[in-house]
């Protein structure tokens, strides 16, 4: 059976024009396969390029070399040179992303933040709200917070809103960037359940988990990233964005 996602010889460098055009090589020759129904967990020290890989898969970072191919039953789709206008429908229908931090939109309530991926697909507002509330309840977000904008929430509360938003649309491919980082044990367990359910419905998940316990419980495979992937490792791409 073909992998759903096929990454071959992926290469990423950043050219910093402000610093005299210095080129930072952050990834070289990374290859991986991701199958439907599995959770592949990226391992390796901080700054090794795990988030960089997720961001390349999600289109936030350009691909400097190599290929990312999605294999649909009726044909393949190459992401490294995907036309710009195709990214939004692809993100709406296929690739979901749970980032570490919630990008707060002022004035939009937690519930609406969670509903949005469904509304974007044209789901009826009442149904979207019901599903959002179910998820927020499962993630133990106090009901009084649902109608409030998450800007003033604690880190853990924001993280749960973010997770609900990431899981609500049941994307076939889900990228998880430390979704459990600021959660307590109870809510970590909920996230593990959500991941298991996603796998059960055939989603392919690629994640970064610092928590060794979570990692062990969700990972079907581990992909260790190590320094030979990277020529110069002095650069942290996060500092860039």
């Amino acid at each position, binding site marked *: 059976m073909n992998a759903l996602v096929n990454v071959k010889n992926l290469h990423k460098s950043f050219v910093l*024009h402000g610093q005299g055009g210095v080129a930072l090589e952050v990834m070289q020759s990374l290859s991986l396969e991701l199958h439907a129904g*599995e959770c592949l967990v990226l391992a390796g020290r901080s700054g090794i390029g795990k988030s960089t890989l997720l961001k390349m898969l999600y289109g*936030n970072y*350009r691909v400097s070399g190599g290929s990312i191919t999605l294999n649909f039953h009726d044909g393949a789709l190459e992401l490294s040179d995907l036309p710009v206008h195709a990214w*939004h429908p692809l993100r709406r229908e296929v690739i979901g992303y749970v980032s570490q931090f919630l990008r707060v939109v002022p004035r939009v309530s937690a519930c609406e933040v969670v509903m949005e991926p469904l509304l*974007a697909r044209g789901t009826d507002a009442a149904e979207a709200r019901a599903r959002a509330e179910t998820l927020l309840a499962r993630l133990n977000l106090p009901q009084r917070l649902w109608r409030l904008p998450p800007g003033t929430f604690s880190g853990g509360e924001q993280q749960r809103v973010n997770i609900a938003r990431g899981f609500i649309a049941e994307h076939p491919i889900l990228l998880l960037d430390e979704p459990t980082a600021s959660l307590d044990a109870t809510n970590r367990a909920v996230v593990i359940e959500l991941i298991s359910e996603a*796998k*059960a419905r*055939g989603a392919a998940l690629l994640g970064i988990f610092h928590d060794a316990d979570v990692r062990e419980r969700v990972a079907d495979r581990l992909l260790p990233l190590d320094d030979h992937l990277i020529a110069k490792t002095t650069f942290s791409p996060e500092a*860039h964005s």
Partner: protein
Amino acid sequence: MKRSELAGPALAKPVLDRSALLDVQDISRLYGPGKGCESIDFRLHAGEVLGIVGESGSGKSTLLRVLAGLETPDAGRVIYHTNDGELDLYAISEARRRALLRLEWGLVHQNPRDGLRMGVSAGANVGERLMALGERHYGNLRAAGQDWMTQVELDAGRIDDAPLTFSGGMQQRLQIARTLVTRPRLVFMDEPTGGLDVSVQARLLDMIRTLVRQLGLSVVLVTHDLAVARLLSHRLLVMRRGQVVEAGLTDQILDDPQHAYTQLLVSSVLTP
């Protein structure tokens, strides 16, 4: 290693192509060297929000005026795709172009005073485009006015008040209602949150996002504010000295800028 047999139903390739709405072909409008816009090319798809960012004087407002039919370019074409075929914006008759601007397109000015009739009531402002379309039923016009004021979160009870008595944020929302009442396919926005207080901006941005989604609008948005661009636009054009220096997905431009100028622009933003 567990290779899943649980894999769900075979996944079909999603439809990623969207129909073209506007083709901008090699547009130039120069007032002097580096003043104006030069050799601009892009395609806007149905349902897309395209942000044009850059500093003041980068030519983004000139480009918007040319796209919106308000200023004839020195060279190049603006092609609008309708259900009945293509229209070359500056080759069609002025009558046709003005009808298009009035009914199928919309323009939201930075200063609501430029887009509203300040001396007549809010209801008349909202109803004007409908009257231009031939609506001759006062009751219907009134109902549409109340409906749209509610949609832009204005008190429909103030339908007979003049915009002069409204705050800046309310005026801007009224301008948007006035523009959207004919359900345009394409809307141009020039710094729509420009002159507003930050708290008022947030409310307006959220409203614009919701309306864009609900009405399936295509939008060309000019802004110097990268946060506004990130919030509203799917794609960005970065302009400098009249030219597009970088174009791409909004996230990608802001998270992984390629051009030296874009890197400078992105790194110059203050984040609280």
